[in-house]
């Protein structure tokens, strides 16, 4: 039998006495794409952080090419040719793309000074190979999330690597970019790299992976050959029970003869939003589809008053509103769940509870003071409802897994019970079990008469949720489709290309 390139054996790890990994074993072969799956908080990122020296295991061994290796810090990992694309971005916003990619590995001139020219040239080559349209001198903080992801990938590939770990690399990429990434993974695979791929998107896993290992609650559940298994089996491994009608669309009755709750007329903002008009009716879920850069998020930001509007009108319940700042928007009954939630939506050093109740503090008062009992109840309610995996509601948000942090932000805005809810990529990084929950919560909200706008790059999600879909291209609405007119994802794919 072929010797695996990487073996991790009986790895255990606990934080403050709470076991996060319990004797997990796992191996990857050369030229293999191996999916690591499991619900939010199952321990995937932790296992990979042990491999890359961010954490050290309490127990267990790591073997590379059959030889035992000690990995105690990121240097050790690098010396063993292990690179990782982290779920939490490891980029410095204030540095340029090239400076980030070669951070700590800059080429030097004969005087020992940084040779920026060479770094820029090499970055240029890398970006060209990845087919990414950014410049090495762009400041990372000024780029969109999708570009961050590609920069991360370029960074990982810029060093000599045998084992490449990707922790949810596609969570902020669109279909098109994902395809580019996949063809790249295919090439790496043919070159003999071992790739560990973490994702919550099932279709992806079956498209590019050779084997799947599933963790649940820190324990190893199964390793399966992709071609010998199917979606249902994997989902069952992940959630530990039978899956349910996850992504089925339900027709929901609502009326379009009334005044729309939200009407956007000829909105113009910045270079990305050129002319956007749409209506949302009470009880309706409107989906917005589009490529990265098509101006979807920017439209949401402009409506919400984060970016300045340069033209157009916003009508709420038929009344024209001036929304210049986010508080104006909140007063008008709007809520926006932003795209990069961990950066914009969460106070990482605060507890789960404090984050959830932040927007509704004024509603949780008992006399002049905060009604702690009610606040705790509120927080617990959402932790349960969205299945946020945390020891208790007082845990610091920073210590939760990536997907669970996403859920806190959702909970925060759902608790606020807004009239109009705009969700930008609501289920990024959320596991399959919780995705269903979130979709249900959104539907419930719509059923109670709220107007909802969902921006999503995941077609299955758009298809499951939307009553109507508008496609955006180059800052304009290019197509509007009732859900009943859409028969396949291909039609959506076509619509967002702008033809």
């Amino acid at each position, binding site marked *: 039998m072929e010797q695996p390139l990487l073996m991790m054996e009986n790895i255990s790890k606990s934080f403050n006495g709470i076991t996060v990994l319990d004797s997990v074993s796992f191996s990857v072969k050369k030229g293999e794409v191996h999916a690591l799956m499991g619900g939010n908080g199952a321990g995937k990122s932790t296992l990979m952080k042990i491999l890359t020296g961010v954490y050290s295991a309490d127990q267990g061994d790591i073997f590379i090419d059959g030889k035992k290796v000690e990995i105690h810090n990121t240097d050790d990992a690098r010396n063993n040719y292990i690179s990782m694309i982290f779920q939490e971005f490891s980029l410095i916003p204030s540095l340029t793309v090239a400076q980030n990619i070669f951070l*700590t590995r800059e080429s030097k001139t004969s005087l020992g000074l940084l040779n920026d020219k060479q770094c820029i040239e090499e970055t240029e080559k890398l970006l060209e190979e990845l087919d990414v349209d950014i410049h090495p001198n762009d400041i990372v903080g000024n780029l969109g999330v999708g570009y961050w992801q590609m920069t991360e990938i370029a960074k990982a590939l810029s060093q000599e690597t045998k084992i490449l770990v990707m922790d949810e690399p596609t969570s902020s990429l669109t279909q098109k970019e994902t395809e580019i990434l996949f063809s790249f993974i295919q090439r790496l695979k043919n070159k003999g790299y071992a790739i560990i791929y973490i994702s919550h998107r099932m279709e992806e896993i079956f498209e590019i992976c050779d084997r799947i290992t599933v963790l649940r609650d820190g324990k190893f559940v199964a390793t399966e050959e992709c071609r010998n298994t199917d979606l249902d089996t994997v989902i069952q491994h992940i959630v530990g029970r039978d899956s349910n009608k996850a992504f089925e669309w339900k027709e929901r009755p609502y009326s379009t003869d009334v005044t729309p709750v939200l009407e956007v007329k000829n909105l113009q903002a910045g270079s990305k939003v050129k002319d956007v008009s749409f209506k949302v009716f009470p009880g309706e879920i409107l989906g917005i589809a589009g490529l990265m850069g098509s101006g979807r998020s920017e439209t949401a930001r402009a409506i919400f008053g984060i970016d300045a509007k340069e033209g157009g009108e916003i009508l709420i319940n038929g009344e024209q509103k001036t929304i210049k700042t986010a508080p104006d928007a909140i007063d008008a009954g709007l809520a926006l769940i932003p795209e990069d939630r961990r950066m914009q939506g969460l106070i990482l050093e605060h507890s789960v509870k404090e984050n959830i109740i932040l927007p509704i503090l004024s509603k949780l008062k008992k006399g002049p003071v905060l009604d702690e009992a009610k606040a705790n109840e509120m927080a617990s309610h959402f932790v349960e409802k969205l299945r946020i995996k945390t020891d208790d509601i007082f845990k610091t948000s920073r210590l939760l897994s990536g997907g669970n942090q996403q859920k806190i932000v959702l909970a925060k805005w759902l608790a606020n019970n807004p009239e109009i809810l705009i969700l930008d990529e609501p289920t990024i990084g959320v596991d399959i079990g919780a995705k269903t929950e979130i979709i249900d919560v959104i539907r419930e909200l719509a059923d109670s008469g709220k107007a909802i706008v969902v921006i999503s790059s995941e077609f299955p999600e758009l298809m499951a949720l939307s009553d109507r879909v508008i496609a955006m291209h180059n800052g304009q609405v290019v197509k509007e489709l009732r859900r009943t007119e859409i028969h396949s994802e291909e039609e959506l794919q076509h619509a967002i290309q702008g033809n």
Partner: protein
Amino acid sequence: MPSKEINAPGQVAFGKSKPRPVQKLDWRNYIVYFAFIGVLIYFSISLFDDGFVSTDNLLNIARQTAMISIMGVAMTFVISTGEIDLSVGSTTALASLTAALAIQSGFGMLGGLVAGLGTGLIVGLINGLLITRFVIPSFLVTLGMMGIVKGMAMWVTDTAPVPIINSAFNFLFGSGDIGSVPILLVWTLLATVAAHILLRKTSFGRQTLATGGNESAARFSGVKTHRIKLMVFLGTGLAAGFAGILYAGRMHAGRYTFGDGDELSVIAAVILGGTSLFGGVGTVIGTLIGSLMIGTINNGLIIMGLDVSQQMMIKGLIIILAVAFGKKAMKN
């Protein structure tokens, strides 16, 4: 999902990378330069008859600002990592005394230099270790150190000044002129050039900015952020020690009052220059200009005949306005 070729016209996201202009120069980053030029022009015109533009006066400004500039370029690194060092003023005082004492005890110029710089390095080392090992916020550590070191400076000679009778030392480290160029200006330029290269052209500088830009991301990328922080505090310690030596050389004595309140001028110079108080963005040249600007304002106000209380108020106002204006411009 078949990977069909879908190439939409005018597609924004991905495509053959087309050449793009290098990051445009942004005038906002240079606001301090304009402000400085504005202040210079204003005083040149309004104080022309009072001799503001004379070479003598301009060189005098360079002399008066040298210590602030030198500590400022070191502070640029500390602030770039998102930290702060409040102890530089006190360290200056103590270093002037240890240097003077060493010379008085017959260790000569070199002895004075070693004692002064050593004092600064020890303070920096203690600051750095407390901040990185015990993870105490730098604001607290250096606030505490500010008091401790000041106390030591008063205690070491029971507040008595220590005269320095060593003309070589006094010439080289403060009072001398090379031709008509003050030696203090030479030191300032040397420190600025060295620090500029260190920040812009070495991996240490890059890692300093990375640490301040996003510490955990920097750590994931293999930056030893604690070591970087320790180094930047050694840097401000060293610079404060050297500033103490320069004060001593200029005044021919060590004295506990030297550097009183300098930490605030130094921090103001750094922030005025365009370094971000939140870390991640830093500029050494900006700091030099910031320091010169504060010095020029001081000088101009004195020539105008304003008294100290008026000077302080106007200086404070200008600093707030400049920073606020820079911030506002940054947002738009």
